């Protein structure tokens, strides 16, 4: 059963293809063709009309204007980045994906993400899987140092694993790591100065996927020995850049790690990064961020505002990555209220004109996806599920009447025994939903009103997180969210009854179907191949077509705009982080 391999796949350089001034539509078409050609997993990729008849585009793609050829890369210069969210701490313990883009500039993982759920060597040169998939033995790179001078070795890796998974050590405990591996992790042992053996309690085919994610960045053991207050401001990794200074409320200044010798196998050039410094500014206001970018003050913009999408794709180079795992979707309350009846849940699916809503709210920045159980970019995505509930208000009306909601009141809302068919749409303002999302909710509200369903929008303050009373069981009917990851490992994250030995906090629906649980257990132990795809499809069919416990909206698109002076930029297939070690500035 032993399987030794060192993968050397390189990511496709889609960004380098000579796409001449392709508009959004033709880029979409291209992506569709690419996917139709390679996605053996798609059950049907050309049924129906309009957007819903096609597989949503997902690949790391380059849209908009192409950068003029600028010749050979030149080292030096300061890249001004206009970012959105400022983390409270930057030492990788807070795992919102928006923080991960920053961490990726100074932390490195054992393995690096490559397209199609592959991984390639990074801090580990090679690895062996043995013991029926329960033991992973990593051979680490030698002569690598953390930027504080501490040597990188097997002991450092073991310290990271131990601290990540010790819930009592709140300074170092890593909730995201725990979600991924706590259920299977047994031990990490240094069996040689540069050999680490990780033992699992049962096989987990997504283990390496996990390790390739930003939250698994290896920190200096010296950093981990500090109290939380010190670590918060002073992260230390082995990466291409190091943190010089954090001016709270303003920016983080990063500088090149001159001794960087641990680049991942999919790095596109050898040697230290080209850029001297990165000024990573936090500009939450959309107008200001866009203004800073268009006036040339910053050369890299994250999260293109929907209103500026058209201008961005016509004038600048735009990169877009659709993250894997769980896409943007509503949880649908299957255990209480009117949605307890599966016919009402299905009616909501039919009544939601997702294409129209997403096009109107995001103006092309996001791509509609009605399969709310899995992101279109994940291998194993079932496009038939995406097309299952094509917009059909007549069908919705029929289902609602059959469910007993046949009377209409003076306002046109359906009633049953004098009760109005009314749903509460709860969203966490600013954290999960911004103004673009709010527009989408309003469109959903109007769509459902047409078939006689009343929807009330209820924002919760960001300070309450998921502990808001409105998010508790019985208090909501539709709840927006997403879980960014790489692929079908996201099923375990959301639909397993238990996670890291505790009741699963990521699933607000309370829906834990024994059939789904069994399928997920099987999936987690089935290596990539037709069998895995079949299992993934079965889970999607169960969650969306049969039980309708999620209502899909779109993929989670990570968008970047690059100014005319910035070259060599690409997005990691992990979660779309900008890879700045290959980027350089022209005069």
């Amino acid at each position: 059963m032993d399987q030794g391999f060192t993968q050397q796949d390189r990511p496709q350089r889609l960004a380098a293809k000579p796409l001449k001034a392709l508009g959004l539509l033709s880029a979409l078409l291209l992506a569709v063709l690419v996917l139709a050609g390679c996605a053996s997993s798609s059950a049907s990729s050309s049924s129906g009309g309009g957007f819903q008849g096609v597989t949503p585009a997902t690949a790391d793609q380059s849209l908009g204007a192409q950068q003029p050829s600028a010749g050979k890369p030149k080292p030096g210069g300061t890249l001004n980045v206009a970012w959105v969210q400022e983390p409270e701490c930057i030492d990788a313990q807070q795992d919102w994906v928006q923080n991960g883009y920053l961490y990726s500039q100074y932390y490195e993982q054992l393995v690096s993400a490559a397209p199609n759920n592959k991984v390639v060597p990074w801090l580990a040169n090679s690895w062996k899987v043995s013991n029926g998939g329960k033991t992973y033995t990593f051979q680490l790179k030698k002569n690598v140092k953390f930027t504080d001078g501490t040597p990188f070795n097997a002991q450092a890796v073991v310290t990271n694993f131990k601290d990540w998974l010790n819930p009592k050590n709140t300074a170092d405990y890593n909730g995201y790591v725990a979600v991924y591996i706590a259920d299977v992790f047994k031990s990490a042992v240094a069996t040689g100065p540069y050999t680490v053996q990780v033992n699992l309690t049962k096989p987990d085919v997504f283990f390496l996927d996990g390790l390739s994610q930003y939250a698994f960045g290896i920190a200096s053991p010296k950093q981990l020995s500090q109290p939380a207050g010190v670590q918060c401001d002073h992260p230390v990794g082995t990466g291409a850049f190091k943190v010089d200074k954090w001016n709270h409320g303003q920016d983080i200044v990063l500088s090149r790690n001159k001794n960087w010798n641990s680049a991942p196998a999919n790095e596109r050039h050898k040697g230290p990064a080209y850029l001297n410094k990165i000024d990573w500014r936090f500009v939450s206001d959309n107008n200001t961020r866009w203004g800073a970018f268009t006036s040339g003050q910053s050369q890299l913009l994250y999260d293109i505002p929907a209103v500026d999408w058209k201008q961005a794709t016509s004038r600048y180079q735009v990169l877009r990555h659709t993250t894997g795992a769980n896409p943007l979707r509503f949880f649908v309350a299957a255990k209480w209220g009117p949605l307890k009846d599966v016919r009402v849940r299905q009616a909501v699916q039919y009544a939601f004109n997702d294409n129209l809503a997403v096009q109107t709210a995001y103006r092309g920045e996001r791509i509609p996806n009605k399969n709310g159980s899995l992101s279109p970019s994940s291998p194993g995505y079932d496009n038939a599920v995406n097309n299952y509930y094509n917009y059909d208000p007549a069908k919705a009306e029929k289902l609602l009447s059959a469910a007993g909601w046949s009377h209409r009141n003076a306002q046109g809302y359906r009633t049953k025994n004098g009760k109005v068919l009314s749903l509460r749409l709860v969203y966490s303002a600013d954290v999960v939903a911004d103004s673009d999302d709010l527009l989408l909710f309003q469109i959903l509200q109007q769509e459902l009103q047409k078939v006689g369903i009343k929807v009330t929008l209820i924002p919760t303050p960001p300070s309450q997180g998921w502990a808001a009373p409105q998010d508790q069981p019985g208090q909501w009917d539709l709840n927006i969210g997403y879980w960014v990851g790489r692929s079908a490992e996201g099923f375990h994250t959301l639909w397993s009854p238990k996670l890291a030995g505790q009741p699963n906090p990521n699933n607000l629906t309370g829906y834990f179907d024994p059939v789904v649980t069994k399928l997920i257990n099987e999936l987690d132990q089935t290596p990539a191949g037709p069998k895995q795809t079949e299992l993934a499809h079965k889970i999607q069919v169960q969650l969306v077509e049969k039980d309708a416990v999620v209502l899909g909206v779109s993929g989670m698109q990570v968008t970047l705009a690059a100014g005319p002076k910035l070259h060599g930029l690409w997005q990691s297939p992990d979660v779309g982080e900008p890879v700045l070690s290959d980027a350089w500035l022209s005069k």
Partner: protein
Amino acid sequence: MAAPAPRRRGVRATRWLLIRVASGVGVLWAAATIAFLLQTLTQQSRARLIYDQRVGNNSIPSKGVTAAINHQYGFDNSVLHQYVSYIGGLVHGNFGVSYFQHVSVWSLIIQQIGPTLILTFSALILAWVIAVGLTLLGAGRHNIWSSAIANFLQMLSASVPSYWVGTILLVIFAVNLHIFPVLGGNPLLALVLPMITMALPVSGFLGQVIQDEFSSALEQPFVTSSRSRGITDFGVRTVHVLRHSVLPGLTLSGWAVGYLFSNAVLVEQVFDRAGIGGVLTKAASEGDVPLATGVVLLSAAAYVIANIVVDILYVFVDPRLRA
């Protein structure tokens, strides 16, 4: 006959000052108490909040972990005990520790207070310059500076939201005309647009009250007598009349400091400036209660101090109050 008067006057002034300071302390104490109650009564589980934020919002902490956090932050003590130690801490200048950044609130505030103070006071000065300038040029005369249009513009500037003004100024002068930087750049240049944004509404308010007072003072007999003594119109307006009319402006400045301080929250956001505003919005939206209450207390303190200073200034500007 004249001997005891100065001493009594000194005693009276000291007593007056003591009363003002005592009432200021009272206001701060009330603010601190409300802040404390908000902390303890509205948050369901502060331990859960702290834990969630630290580990990434996706775990349910075990009882042992929650107990450890409760103990570390003293949440397991009685509310009265927590209140006494909170107020006691404040008296010693201890504002507590940020839940999410794990360092003292005071150090976080000190880091960010400078730019906000600079913005607040430069905006206040600019507002005064605009208001006094327009008054000297226009009040009591019939020219463009006293026209209905000028008056309307003043009302308008007092009533439009600064968030909107800021965005418009930014788009015109920074994004399109490139006269000022959108982000950062030369600190003096970067100050200009936010300062104007903040000063405009305040200058509108100031201008309205100063001009009213100025116009009525112009009709006072002392103006006629000054003129008859041969003082120029400019001299009369700047030396005699202005001194009368700035009094209501001073009163308003006490309010303006508080207004500017809180308005900085929005303006700093628009111009992406460092400052206390960003700290407050972030702390309040994420539930970092000690940090948010620290900033709120500081704003209250700024308000109280500004009003005491204004009261003292009054005495200097208006000699009648010295009696």
